[in-house]
C-alpha cells in the first residue's frame, strides 16, 4: 500500500491542461505518483490517457499547469530530457529496434560510460545491459539481436531499458507502462507482474491498461480518467471491475444519445451471408445479416474483427470461405469487387485511410461512385457540385462548400463526408464501419448514430465494429463478440432486452 510519509512524490501534476485546436485533450488534471508504488491509469479511448503519458514522457508539453519531480518544478521539453530525469516510457507497440543488439537497445541514447569520445566500449556496454537484464530476471544475452527474441522476452528488454534510464539519476526512476499486457499470453503476464513487483522496490510505476482485473491486481492506487479529466481516485482493495467501469463510462447513457428512437425493425430476409470465412487473424466466421439490420461486432485488439471487416471489403485477401449479397457471390480479390456489389467501408484511421486531405469535399464524396456525376467517364462539374451540395445539406456537414479542402473540416465533418461517399451510391446494400465514432466529440457521435439508423431504415445492412461496449449494445439489433479470431457469442439487442456488459466482456476475453 502506498505510504503517506513526508517523502515528496516522485511526480506531481497540478492543473495540467492540453488542447489541440478546439479539442480539449486534458482539462486541469492533478495527480501524484509516489515513490515505490504502482499507479493505475484507466479510461476509455479518448479519455486523455495517451495525452497524459505524452506529457509525462516529454513527448509533448502541457499548455498550462505545473509538474513537480520529487518536489522540484520541471518541464520536460523533450523525451531525452525526461529520460535523463529518470522518467521513461515503455510503449505499447514496443520501441525496440529489431536490427541491433539487446544491449544497444537497453542503452539507446543513454550510453553514458559505455561510449567514450564517441567510441563504443562493448564490454562495459554489455556489463551494464546485463545488470538491467538481471534485474528483470531475463535470460536474454546482451549481444543477442533483438528481432531473434520472442515478443514476451522483448517486453522484458523494454522494461530493462526503462530501468536503465534511472542510471544517470540518483533517484529511483518513474516507469510509464502503456498497455504492457495487451498482447501478452497469461503466463507472460504473470512474469511481467512479478517483475513489476520486484522493480517497484526502487521505482515508481504508472500502469495503463484496459484490462481492469489486472489493474486491480497489480496497482496500489488507480486514477480513472474521462473526457480529459481525472474523475476518481480508487483504492483497488475496495473496488471491483463493475465499479471501475461505471466510473470510466460516467455519463448517464440515455437512449437519446444513441438515437434508439430512430431504430427500425429489420426485414427478415438475409442480405449478407458470410460462410466459414477465414482470413488473416480470424477463422471460420459464419454470419447472416438481414436487410436493414445493424450488427455490431465487439472484441479487444487482435480479436480479428478489424481484419474481418477488411476481408469483407476486399482490402485483405481471404484464405477461404464465401460471401454473398442478396444471393450473389462477392469476389474478394479487390476493393473494386466489393464496391461493385454495393458494399461500402468506413476505415478506422480516418486521416490515413478515409479522407483524402489534399482534395475537395466534392471530390472525396464522389470518388467511389464517379458514375453518379459523370457521362462516359467525363465528370460533369455542375452535377458534382449539385450532388455534393445535396449531401452537405442532408448530413448537415459544416463546410464552406463543395470546393472546400478536406483538411479544413473538423474530424466529425470529415467523417460525414466519408459516409456520404458511400451513401450517394445508387445501390448501397452493406456498409461496414470500423470504429466510426473514434475520436469524435459526443455531439458528432450522436449524429453518426442517427445516420446509421436512417440507413438501416432504408434496408442497408450495417456491420458496426463498435468503439465501446455501450455503442455496440445500444446502436445495434444484434451483438457479436469475437476473441482470438473466432466468433464467441451472439446476443439479440432490443430496447428493454439488451445484453449485459459482463456477459459481453466474458466472451471478449
Amino acid at each position, binding site marked *: 500500500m502506498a505510504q503517506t510519509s513526508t517523502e515528496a512524490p516522485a511526480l506531481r501534476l497540478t492543473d495540467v491542461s492540453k488542447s489541440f485546436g478546439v479539442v480539449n485533450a486534458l482539462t486541469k488534471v492533478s495527480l501524484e505518483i509516489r515513490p515505490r508504488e504502482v499507479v493505475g491509469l484507466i479510461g476509455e479511448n479518448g479519455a486523455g490517457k495517451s495525452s497524459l503519458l505524452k506529457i509525462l514522457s516529454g513527448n509533448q508539453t502541457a499548455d498550462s499547469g505545473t509538474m513537480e519531480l520529487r518536489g522540484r518544478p520541471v518541464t520536460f521539453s523533450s523525451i531525452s530530457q525526461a529520460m535523463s530525469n529518470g522518467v521513461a516510457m515503455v510503449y505499447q507497440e514496443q520501441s525496440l529496434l529489431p536490427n541491433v543488439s539487446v544491449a544497444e537497445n537497453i542503452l539507446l541514447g543513454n550510453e553514458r560510460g559505455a561510449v567514450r569520445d564517441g567510441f563504443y566500449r562493448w564490454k562495459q556496454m554489455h556489463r551494464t545491459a546485463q545488470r538491467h537484464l538481471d534485474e528483470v530476471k531475463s535470460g536474454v544475452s546482451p549481444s543477442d539481436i533483438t528481432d531473434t527474441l520472442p515478443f514476451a522476452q522483448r517486453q522484458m528488454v523494454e522494461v530493462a531499458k526503462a530501468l536503465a534510464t534511472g542510471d544517470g539519476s540518483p533517484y529511483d526512476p518513474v516507469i510509464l507502462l502503456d498497455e504492457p499486457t495487451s498482447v501478452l499470453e497469461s503466463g507472460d503476464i504473470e512474469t511481467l507482474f512479478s517483475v513489476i513487483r520486484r522493480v517497484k522496490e526502487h521505482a515508481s510505476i504508472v500502469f495503463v491498461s484496459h484490462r481492469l482485473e489486472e489493474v486491480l491486481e497489480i496497482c496500489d492506487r488507480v486514477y480513472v480518467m474521462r473526457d480529459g479529466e481525472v474523475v476518481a481516485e480508487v483504492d483497488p482493495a475496495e473496488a471491483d471491475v463493475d465499479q471501475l467501469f461505471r466510473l470510466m463510462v460516467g455519463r448517464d447513457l440515455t437512449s437519446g444519445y444513441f438515437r434508439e428512437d430512430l431504430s427500425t425493425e429489420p426485414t427478415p430476409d438475409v442480405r449478407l451471408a458470410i460462410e466459414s470465412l477465414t482470413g488473416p487473424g480470424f477463422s471460420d466466421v459464419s454470419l447472416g445479416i438481414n436487410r436493414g439490420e445493424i450488427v455490431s461486432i465487439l472484441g479487444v485488439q487482435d480479436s480479428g474483427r478489424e481484419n474481418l471487416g477488411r476481408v469483407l471489403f476486399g482490402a485483405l485477401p481471404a484464405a477461404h470461405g464465401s460471401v454473398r449479397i442478396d444471393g450473389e457471390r462477392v469476389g474478394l480479390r479487390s476493393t473494386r469487387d*466489393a464496391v461493385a456489389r454495393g458494399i461500402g467501408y468506413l476505415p478506422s484511421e480516418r486521416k490515413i485511410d478515409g479522407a483524402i486531405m489534399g482534395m475537395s469535399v466534392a471530390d472525396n464524396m464522389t470518388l467511389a461512385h464517379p458514375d453518379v456525376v459523370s457521362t462516359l*467517364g467525363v465528370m460533369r462539374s455542375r452535377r458534382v457540385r449539385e450532388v455534393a451540395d445535396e449531401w452537405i445539406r442532408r448530413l448537415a456537414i459544416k463546410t464552406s462548400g463543395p470546393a472546400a479542402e478536406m483538411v479544413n473540416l473538423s474530424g466529425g465533418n470529415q467523417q460525414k463526408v466519408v459516409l456520404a461517399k458511400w451513401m450517394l451510391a445508387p445501390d448501397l446494400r452493406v456498409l461496414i464501419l470500423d470504429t466510426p465514432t473514434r475520436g469524435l466529440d459526443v455531439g458528432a457521435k450522436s449524429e453518426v448514430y442517427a445516420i446509421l439508423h436512417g440507413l438501416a431504415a432504408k434496408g442497408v445492412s450495417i456491420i458496426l465494429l463498435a468503439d465501446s461496449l455501450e455503442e455496440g449494445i445500444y446502436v445495434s439489433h444484434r451483438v457479436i463478440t469475437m476473441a482470438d479470431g473466432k466468433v464467441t457469442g451472439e446476443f439479440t439487442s432490443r430496447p428493454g432486452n439488451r445484453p449485459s456488459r459482463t456477459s459481453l466482456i466474458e466472451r471478449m476475453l
Partner: protein
Amino acid sequence: MPTSSEVTPVVEVEKGRRPAGSTTRSAKRGERKGAAARVLGFVNQKGLTPAIVVVLMIVVFWAMNPSGVTLNTLSTLFDQSAALLMLALAQSLVVLMGRIDLANSALASFLCVLLVIWLNTLGPIAIPLVLLLGVAIGALQGWVHMYFQIPSFVVTLAVSGIVGGAGLIASGASAVSLIQNFELVQWFYESPGGIPLAFVIGAAIAAVLAFFVAKTARGRTLKAIGSNQRATAYSGIRTTVTVVLGFALAGLLIGIAAIMTVGQLGTASSGIANSLLLPSIAAVVVGGTAISGGTGGPGRIVFGALIIALLRIGLDIIGVPQEFQPIVYGVIVIAAIAITVNRSRTLSVV
C-alpha cells in the same frame, strides 16, 4: 502502427494544408492585404504564376539583349522545348501519382536509337512500334513497382541502366543516322505560317492530358493516389491498375519525345536525351506540381517546360557559358522543391 496520427494527432490536420491550393487561406489573406495581394492570391490559386514568369523572363532577356530576342529565337525556343515538354508531361503524370521516373530520359534515348534503326530498316511501321514499346516499358515499370512494392525511384533507376545498355548495344556505341524516311518525322519541325508545329502539337497533347487529369473520372484517380493511396484503395479504386496506366501513358509521351528528337536531329545515340532528365524534373516542379504528389498537373507543365527551355536559351542570350547550365538546373530543382515541399506531410524525408 507508429503512424503520423499517433504522434501529432490534431496538429497534423492543422498543418496539413497544401501550399498550392489552400483556397480559404489565400482568400482571407487577400481580404486583409488589399487588391495587390488579392490579385497575387488569384494568380497563385489558378496556377498562373508559371505563365507570368515566362512573360517576365522574355521581357528580362529582351531588356538585357534586345537583339537576342527575335521571332526567330522564340521559334527556336518552341522547337527546342517540344521534346522537353513531352518528357516533362510524362514526368508530371508520374509525379502527380506521388512517384518519380528516373528512366524518363534514358528510355527516350533508347527509343531514339531504335526509331532511327527501324526507320532505316522497317520503314513507317517504326513509329507505332516505338510508341508501343514506350507504352510497354512504361507499363512494365509501373507493374514491377506496384506488384513487388519496390520504390519507383529504384525501379526506374534500374530500368534506366537496362535501356541505357540496350541502347549501347543497338547503336553499337556510336551515333546512328537516319538515311531513310526522314520525312516521316521531320514534319514536326515545319512552321506553316510561322507557327512551329512541334510545339503546337505538344501544347495540344498537354491540353488533352490536362483535361484527362482534371475532368475525367480515371484521371482524377491519379491525383487521388498521389494524395492518399490508401484512402483511394479504400474507395474501391484499383490502385495498381491506375498506376500502371499512368506509367504506360508516360511511356507513350516518352515515345513521342523520341520521335520529336529524331525529327529535329535526324540522328540518335544511346545517350542523346540523357541530359533532359533533370530539366524534365525541373519543369515539373517549376510548373508548380508538388513532388510529394497530388497537386498540379499537365496544364501547368507547359509553362514549366517553357521556363526551363527559356532559361536554356536565355542563358545563351545573356552569355552564360554552357557549363553553368547543369549547375543552374540542379539549383533550380532544389530551390523549387524546397519552396513547394509540404513539410508536414510525412514524418521524415530520407
